[in-house]
């Protein structure tokens, strides 16, 4: 069975609604990427060095990341040579396949590590302005709809208005927010929150933290302490450490992931603001260069636009048109 057929089959097990969300949220990336690819095919009829250089540019433009792109294009060069592909039209399916493989091949755990019948503590970390608090609001809504009792911990005691922002989300989703005054020790807030969550029998505690740049040693130490306090109260907590990354971020996203992982043992990534950019390629770089699974993707601004990451859906969202073309060709041949 061909690669694309397999992909289609695994998609058919999922709801139409999810498929549409992914296709909608990734439409920007898809349009610009497919457009650029078509132009490339028009401009270069034959596969030569210039063709590959242009291809490098297209992939880099989608923020796939310089290293990943260089590896990928080198593989394509070899493959083209081996299979003796000379016409650019014939290499297009190969490109799609390689990119898709990158997304689908690694069997990373994308489900949240939920504790059955016990409190699940989720720590949310990231640099400033990536959408930590908003993601927490959306996650709270999601878990609540699944019938769980959710609580929020207002651990961003630094930024002006951060606690109030989380409180608004608490009201909207009707969940309790545990907070202290602005400027208080975030570790103390966490301690307090875990105690309250335990005594009130909550299922999920979502812990907000202040945004911090990964190269600020002191702030990273503070984060370490916050995590330590959680572990002290519940030995295997936090059960998830989610790093929120902004999809518009460039190569620095990799540095963020690396350092946050060193400090807090990040277990998953929430990739936000994917709908706004034509740059969904960063997922490829993350997959290729880091050993951290993407668990959620933000595909829009409304509350239910934070979706669990499904690699097949993502591939389909990126290459829907190309995949359909390839399928049609397969069937007719």
């Amino acid at each position, binding site marked *: 069975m061909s690669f694309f057929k397999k992909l289609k089959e695994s998609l058919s097990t999922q709801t139409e609604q999810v498929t549409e969300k992914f296709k909608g949220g990734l439409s*920007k990336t898809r349009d610009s990427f497919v457009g650029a690819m078509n132009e490339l095919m028009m401009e270069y009829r034959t596969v030569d060095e210039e063709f590959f250089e242009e291809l490098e*540019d297209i992939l*880099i*433009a*989608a*923020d796939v990341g*310089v290293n990943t792109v260089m590896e990928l294009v080198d593989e394509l060069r070899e493959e083209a040579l081996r299979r003796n592909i000379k016409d650019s039209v014939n290499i297009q399916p190969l490109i799609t396949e390689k990119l898709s493989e990158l997304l689908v091949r690694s069997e990373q755990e994308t489900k949240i590590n939920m504790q059955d019948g016990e409190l699940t503590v989720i720590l949310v970390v990231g*640099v*400033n*302005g*990536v*959408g930590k608090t908003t993601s927490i*609001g959306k996650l709270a809504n999601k878990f609540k709809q699944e019938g769980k009792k959710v609580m929020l911990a207002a651990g961003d005691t*630094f*930024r*002006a*208005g*951060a606690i*109030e*922002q989380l*409180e*608004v*989300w608490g009201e*909207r989703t009707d969940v309790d927010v545990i907070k202290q005054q*602005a400027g208080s020790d975030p570790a103390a807030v966490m301690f307090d929150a875990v105690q309250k969550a335990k005594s009130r029998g909550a299922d999920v505690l979502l812990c907000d933290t202040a945004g911090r*740049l*990964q*190269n*600020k*040693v*002191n702030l990273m*130490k503070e984060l370490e302490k916050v995590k330590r306090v959680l572990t002290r109260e519940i030995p295997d907590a936090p059960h998830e450490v989610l790093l929120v990354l*902004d999809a*518009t*971020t*460039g*190569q*620095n*996203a*990799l*540095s963020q992931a*690396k350092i946050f992982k060193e400090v807090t043992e990040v277990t998953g990534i929430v990739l936000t*603001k994917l*709908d*706004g*950019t*034509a*740059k969904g390629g*960063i997922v490829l770089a993350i997959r290729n260069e880091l050993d951290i699974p993407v668990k959620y993707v933000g595909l829009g601004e409304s509350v239910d636009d934070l979706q669990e990451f499904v690699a097949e859906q993502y591939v389909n969202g990126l290459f829907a048109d190309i995949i359909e073309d390839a399928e049609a060709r397969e069937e007719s041949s």
Partner: protein
Amino acid sequence: MAFEGLAERLQGSMKKIKGKGKVSEQDVKEMMREVRLALLEADVNFKVVKQFVKDVRERAVEQEVMESLTPGQQVIKVVNEELTQLLGGEQSKLNTAQKPPTVVMMVGLQGAGKTTTTGKLALHLRKKHNRKPLMAAADIYRPAAIKQLETLGKQLNMPVFSMGDQVSPVEIAQKAVEQAKEEHHDYVLIDTAGRLHVDENLMGELSDIKEATKPDEILLVVDSMTGQDAVNVAESFDEQLGITGVIMTKLDADTRGGAAISVKAVTGKPIKFAGMGEKSDALEPFHPERMASRILGMGDVLSLIEKAQTNVDEDKARELERKMRTNELTFDDFLDQLAQVKDMGPIDELLQMMPGANKMKGMKNLQVDDKQIAHIEAIVKSMTKEERDNPSVLNASRKRRIAQGSGRNIQEVNRLIKQFEEMKKMMKQMTGMQKGKKKGGFKMPFM
């Protein structure tokens, strides 16, 4: 840092041409490939990179580089010059209205740092230019955004105009300008909601605010960690609003900040300020030549020198130099040095500005904590005058006392003494080297 600078990238191709009498066009081509990759890794937009590399190659082939004895350095020089020019050549100031108040609109994507920057800019205007700004809270969408600006206003003791989140941003902006006129504020800073450049409704709203308030400045706030998309963002904000300038934020991150080049290249609008930290006064005028060095991974030597100049006492420096030469360095001098370095700001920030600091042995993963400095200080301060002047008297009993006095353990005391002796040795070597003017001497770390 995760990325290689241009200089490091060029080293490979430079090795190959070393010893060659003349550089071939193929060599230049290879170097240009490294330039291209370095810029792409720094998040400069690929289209901008393409044009840029073309320009540099032309200059390079035009004899300058090929006939130079040190083609590698020459390439770096050409690239640096071209980048500086691309970034705007010189510093650019804020526009002012002929009749106050000057209206400044802050616009940008979500999470770029508009609200924080609004506060910083207001403080900058008051502190550096003795102005009386009014901040207007026109972000009615994000939860608690108004509250954030109000809290900032309270912290900075700066007036904030707000009408809650049930009034249209256009009306808020308009009323804010009216109030500024009445109360004789000379600047109104309008904080608008973050929005996607592709969101037509919200972009329309910004046009309406522009129409209603006739701003003298429309500043696009851009996260310096933005990737390839920075071009599209800047282009659409500029097309739809006609921005007058840019503020780059979060430049204290370990990003190269190539987005600055992209934004400047596609809009042609000057970058006016840079956000350099979490504190409210961490907003600095933008320096194109420094940014160029940073993007190339050459360190921000100029900023470092500037910091040193404003903080280092010259007499003390001269005295220190004499002591170094005569090898009379004591723990007291050491303490002085520490104090001066500390005045310059957090150590890890200083290290980042140093070219090649990340390449030095053991420096790569060095994380300097200002607390460690405090510990060192405590140890030295627990020594007697005699011990500081003449460390050789330090025996086990004295060390134990020092450890107790400073609240550190004895190993730390030992380590410090050892480091101090090594430093003295090193300085002796260095001064000896300078005197003898040995061949080679110091090498710039990036050559």
